[in-house]
């Protein structure tokens, strides 16, 4: 029973955190984009628009869930559910940290651990097409259909380079369980260079990492591969006909996919929760210092030198500063430390990747469809294969792992 209880608790925590992340991911995206475009972005709802996600959720929920008359009802309703389902399910395989001791209970940070974790994630992501495709088809609308077709074709096409790019590090780590994979990446070369897959001998997986990242963009229908929802050609693409929660579901799915993919990248290439440099060089204090610095800046701007014409700041910035400081202190609590440090590193890496996602969206234009296909079939795919071959060769030369 113990097992079930713990699993339940963990699921609750993860689910809550995940959902919140998704909600706030959108806020973050809008903020980042805004600053890239020299705007302020959400600002009205709550301090610095921090409550914007909540507002959005309320808005979407209170809207009328309008179902057009000409659609295929069953699939029209089914599609967003499928999308969300497949998007959320794979988070339960991601290990956020090592197995730790909490209140005398030993458990892994992370919900589940399959022997074939990687394959499972792959499978889920490959099945994920149906949401979009069905949605597009069920809308019974040319634009939506085109969007659905595009996304299915695109996803099938980018599945291959992605899978092959995944295969290469698996050759190095020779296991399919995500947790084992992360553990394989523990340790440092020369005591300083982490043995992450992108640095790991005999053949650092930089290329496969890049390929994986690019295909990840396509798999999640993100710019520059967001053909399925190309506003200027297909109105809203596959979700043209959707409104209220269904619409929200699609977006949630998109963000969930982003998170999952970034987590996968982190686990497979960036060494999961392993810090960037060993603890004896003080990697444990990085979060503390960061947070403290943040709180210092906030306090400075809030109290010493307030910005003109923003009266709220006098209250909000110091408050935020306080919170940051408190967080920084939590990292020093010996009981929480073994849990929080790895989680921090994990989240940090994933966060950087997410930021890259947003950054790219802010900078790159959209591909043309034929360019998209040519890119994957004529460039990514061959490169991935070559990379895989080289890796296999290197591994074979290196001989069997101990």
């Amino acid at each position, binding site marked *: 029973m113990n097992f079930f209880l713990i699993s339940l608790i963990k699921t609750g925590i993860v689910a809550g955190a995940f959902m919140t992340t998704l909600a706030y991911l959108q806020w973050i995206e809008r903020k980042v984009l805004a600053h890239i475009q020299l705007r302020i972005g959400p600002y009205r709802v709550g301090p610095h628009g921090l409550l914007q996600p909540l507002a959005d959720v309320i808005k979407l929920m209170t809207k009328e869930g309008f179902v057009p008359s000409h659609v295929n009802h069953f699939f029209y309703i089914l599609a967003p559910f499928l999308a969300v389902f497949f998007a959320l399910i794979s988070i339960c395989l991601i290990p956020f940290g090592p197995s730790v001791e909490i209140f005398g209970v030993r458990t892994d940070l992370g919900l589940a651990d*399959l022997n*074939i974790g990687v*394959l*499972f994630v792959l499978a*889920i992501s490959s099945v994920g097409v149906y949401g979009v*495709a069905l949605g*597009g088809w069920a809308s019974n609308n040319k634009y939506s259909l085109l969007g659905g077709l595009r996304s299915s074709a695109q996803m099938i096409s980018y599945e291959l380079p992605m899978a092959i790019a995944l295969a290469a590090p698996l050759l190095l780590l020779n296991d399919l369980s995500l947790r084992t994979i992360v553990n394989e990446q523990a340790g440092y070369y020369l005591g300083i260079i982490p043995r992450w897959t992108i640095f790991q001998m005999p053949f650092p997986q930089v290329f496969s990492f890049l390929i994986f990242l690019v295909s990840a963009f396509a798999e999640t229908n993100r710019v520059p591969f967001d053909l399925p929802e190309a506003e200027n050609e297909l109105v809203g693409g596959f979700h043209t006909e959707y409104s209220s929660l269904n619409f929200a579901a699609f977006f949630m799915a998109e963000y969930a996919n982003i998170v999952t993919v970034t987590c996968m990248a982190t686990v497979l290439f960036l060494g999961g929760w392993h810090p960037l440099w060993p603890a004896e060089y003080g990697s444990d204090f990085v979060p503390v210092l960061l947070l403290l610095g943040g709180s210092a800046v906030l306090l400075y701007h809030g109290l010493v030198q307030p910005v003109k014409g923003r009266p709220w700041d006098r209250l909000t910035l110091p408050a935020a500063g306080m919170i940051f400081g408190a967080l920084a202190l939590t990292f020093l609590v010996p009981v929480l430390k073994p849990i929080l440090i790895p989680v921090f590193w994990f989240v940090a890496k994933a966060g950087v990747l997410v930021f890259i996602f947003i950054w790219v969206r802010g900078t790159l234009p959209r591909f043309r469809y034929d360019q998209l296909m040519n890119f994957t079939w004529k460039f990514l795919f061959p490169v991935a294969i070559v990379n895989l071959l080289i890796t296999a060769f290197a591994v074979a030369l290196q001989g069997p792992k101990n």
Partner: protein
Amino acid sequence: MDLILFAFFATIAVACGISLVVQKHPIGSALSLIGVMGSLAVIYLLLGAEFIAAVQLIVYAGAIMVLFVFVIMLLNAGEETATGRSWPTRLLGIPLLAVFLGLLAYLLQRMSPSMGTVTFGAFNTGAREIGRSLFSKYLLPFEVTSVLVLIAILGAIVLARKEID
């Protein structure tokens, strides 16, 4: 526990199978087939064939069925129209199928005592074992299959690029 899981997913599989047959619309059949495949994947897990389960999802549900759905959408295939020529097959088919299933069941229950039971975890096969025998014992078939796939790719391209004339 196993029994419950098995019963549950077996029911889903059979239900989806039936719906595949009775669904009027190809998309419906496709989705029900995906349902069958998904539940079969779980049943494979029960049988300790993890790799096969994953491959079942990746290849069947993730690639083949997507292809099907894609084609159905592309051709925008509507509900099928009943033609007069189907009654003889029905007339003969249904009883024949019944007999077929009955015979199978009879044979199975004849043989069942000699076959023992399946318990979860009694025999687990990860990707490792599969890979081992795939690249040692079944190397030649493996290579041949790869050639086959290549040919299939070429054939598909040649066929599909044909223009309407």
